[in-house]
């Protein structure tokens, strides 16, 4: 895998904020950010809905929803450990919360990864509020 294309909603304040954070992160796999609805996005993956990110690899694999958030973290050098943890079925539904918390550096995030039990970690992630998408 050489490149991951991240299709995001360019009309959503939170998404563009996250995009700005994402491009500053060191990565294992280069990330290319593509605004949804653009010609590029259409060529890559026509079926994406505007309110959800989609990640497409150069080999044609597509991740949607929570899996997409996990894959984005997996591509980042600093947060691959988080992705491996969040991949478990019990934590996957909170991948977006984890992403939000990491990008905003809430709750002393690096300490949380050390939490032993999944339930404990889930308890923390459940409390993360995802800011609404403002257009």
């Amino acid at each position: 895998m050489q490149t991951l294309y991240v299709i995001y909603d360019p009309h959503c304040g939170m998404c563009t904020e996250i995009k700005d954070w994402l491009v500053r992160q060191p990565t294992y796999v280069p990330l290319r950010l593509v605004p949804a609805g653009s010609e590029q996005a259409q060529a890559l993956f026509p079926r994406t809905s505007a309110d959800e990110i989609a990640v497409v690899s150069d080999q044609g694999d597509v991740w949607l929803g929570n899996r997409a958030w996990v894959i984005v973290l997996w591509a980042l050098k600093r947060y691959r450990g988080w992705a491996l943890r969040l991949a478990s079925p019990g934590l996957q539904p909170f991948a977006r919360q984890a992403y939000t918390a990491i990008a905003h550096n809430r709750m002393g995030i690096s300490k949380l990864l050390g939490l032993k039990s999944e339930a404990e970690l889930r308890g923390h992630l459940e409390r993360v509020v995802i800011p609404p998408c403002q257009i």
Partner: protein
Amino acid sequence: MYIEGSYAVYLAISLAVTVWVARTLHKNGRVFLVEAFQGNAELADSVNHLLVVGFYLVNVGWVAMALRTSAILDTPRQAIELVSDKIGGILLVLGMMHFLNLYVFHRLRRRGLEYLEAPPVAPNMHMPPPLPREL
């Protein structure tokens, strides 16, 4: 007077054990570090050497500071007990330092291997290649 003799025995044993532990760490820690630094042996040797220098500084410093005693030694028995007491303290500190070093090796190695991890979640779907080459 047994005090000078006790000091001499204490210093000899403590420093000998320090050297032995440091050499063991240096010899056996290298393989962890080479893996942690993805086969970069030069960097691994450098970090290994720096770790050993830190280990020596902390331990020899501790040995020197723990030397002093206000005990009055009138019999060989008191001398032996004092030396034993002091060396016991040094060995415990050395042991803790040793495990701390092992933990550092372990952490470095784990982080170093992260880059090999495959995507932790399966894609939702697969788009038939070829994808557009350049976007």
